[in-house]
């Protein structure tokens, strides 16, 4: 709590792994239920949904906590920082952008396939869409780390906004 440390986010990631593992083991031990409509996907129990929901929150929190520490550091000091020129981030940005375009095309193909065949490959669609979002997030991280002017403010506690 004293600083923007990495200990708590890393602990959150470990906790997320533990929660997902518990959900997996819980699912392994479940008595398999018959589904009402043949061919339908099996449902998850409420306990597994709860474990996975907390697991996802912990994972997102831990991940963004580590990213935040990488981008903004452990402690702030009032200052201005102008990014220096660098080639590697540009190359990484171009490669990731090309990958994003390729994935976007592939995602569109999954939609066309679903429309034609009447079957949604949900795992594939979700995975490809997730990869696209993650690539855009990485592009933003690269931009913030290597191209953005950074500033730390020390603002008066009393302000006129919003009133």
């Amino acid at each position, binding site marked *: 709590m004293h600083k923007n440390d990495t200990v708590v986010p890393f602990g959150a990631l470990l906790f997320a792994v533990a929660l997902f593992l518990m959900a997996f083991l819980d699912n392994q031990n479940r008595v398999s239920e018959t*589904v009402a409509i043949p061919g339908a996907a099996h449902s998850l129990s*409420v306990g597994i949904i709860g474990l996975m929901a907390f697991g996802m929150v912990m994972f997102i929190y831990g*991940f963004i906590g580590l990213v935040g520490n990488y981008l903004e550091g452990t402690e702030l000091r009032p200052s201005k920082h102008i990014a220096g020129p660098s080639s590697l981030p540009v190359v990484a940005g171009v490669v990731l952008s090309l990958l994003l375009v390729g994935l976007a095309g592939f995602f569109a193909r999954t939609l066309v396939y679903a429309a034609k065949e009447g079957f949604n490959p949900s795992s594939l669609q979700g995975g490809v869409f997730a990869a696209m979002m993650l690539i855009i997030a990485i592009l933003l991280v690269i931009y913030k780390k290597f191209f953005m002017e950074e*500033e730390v*403010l020390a603002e008066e506690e*009393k302000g006129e906004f919003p009133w």
Partner: protein
Amino acid sequence: MYQWLDERLDITRFNNKVLRKAFPVHHTFFLGEITLFAFVVLVLTGIFLTFNYEPSTRLIKVAGYTDPVQAAYASILYIDSLPFGAVIRSVHHWSAHIMIAAAFLHLLRILLSGAYKKPRELNWIIGMLMLVTSIVVAFTGYALPYDNYAVTATRIGHGIAQSVPWVGVAVAQIMFGGDFPGSDHSIPRLFSLHVLWLPLALMGLIGAHLLIMVKQKHTQPKYAEKVAPGKILGVPLFPQQAVMSGVLFLVYVAVVTLIAGGFLAHPVEAYGPLSANTPAVKPDWYFLWIYGLLKIIPSHWEFTIPLFNGGKFGPEFWGGVLIPSILLVGGLLIPFFSVTKDGQKQRYLELPSQKPVRTSLTIAGLMFLIMGTLAGYIGDSGMEWLTIPVAWTLLIVAPIVTYFVCYIIMRAIWGKTWPQEPQIEFIGGAKGSAADD
């Protein structure tokens, strides 16, 4: 272009006044943002769902089903058949769970770090109300697919609403539009509450919460006291914090879409449409502790007060209304029992280890909820050891033991540092000079 707009709208002033607000940096602040982004995703995916959902119980013929099914159920089948439709519906479902989990963890962080103290008491109360409203919104959406499981699980909530003495039947009538299931008005009523009135209330609460937060500023990490005493140390809202929030939003969408695609949270075809066969159901995980209380409270714990047509106080009222209400009111009153020294403003995050009683009580409270949840599994296969007397013992003893174990462990590890304030080396200015008003 900028100059043209600036001459007309004074954008520079807007930038200086609003967009350059200092935003303190600490990883725990992301829990509130995760909650907010879950709500944003719920609204966005919810808009798609409303385009294709029919809030009606009229019977229609659907290919693959021998008997007609309710239109609400049929429209879920239709949504699932649309390209990417099943994933979007699954993202909506998972986001509801994530929003409640993240809001709960956010409140827990506020509680453990003392951020609810003066001047943030009002925002604590609004935060608690937001958590309750989120749970009610999720509940009203649960029955909408109108599959056999969802309808049976929602009946538990209908029974709890009806159990409130004197006013319960009227509350259930307002919320469910009549008997549930059975009334043709139930689904349109729940749909209206779920997509319009409760989200509007939630938006109002979120707006007030953010506005008050901007006015009162964040509690800051303790190191900020030595770097800029009496000031708010942070990065500008735009562009730095906005980019960071953008990264978080994209990571949120990535993680939830991945999970939602792989694990469809509520595949309606697994349960089938409403039928005479009542499946073995449990309410969602955030109601499981209440369900557990309902299981262990004896059915004979009831009496009637013979006033105004008789007010019945039964087990559903004790477990489903009274105990949750006591916990809610207790939670709302926390800022008025735990105050700052000399009525000063709480400016910096407290370490949980420096407040052993509060931390131990919080963990004991969590243990109570976990034990209540465990009681919800009484009678399940593989849980034969969990009888009602065992569940009662765990519910009462486990939180008390947890409190003392936590307290003793904290005393052993950090006891020597409790009387001391953290050592802060002041770089410039007097401690809290600008803000001790």
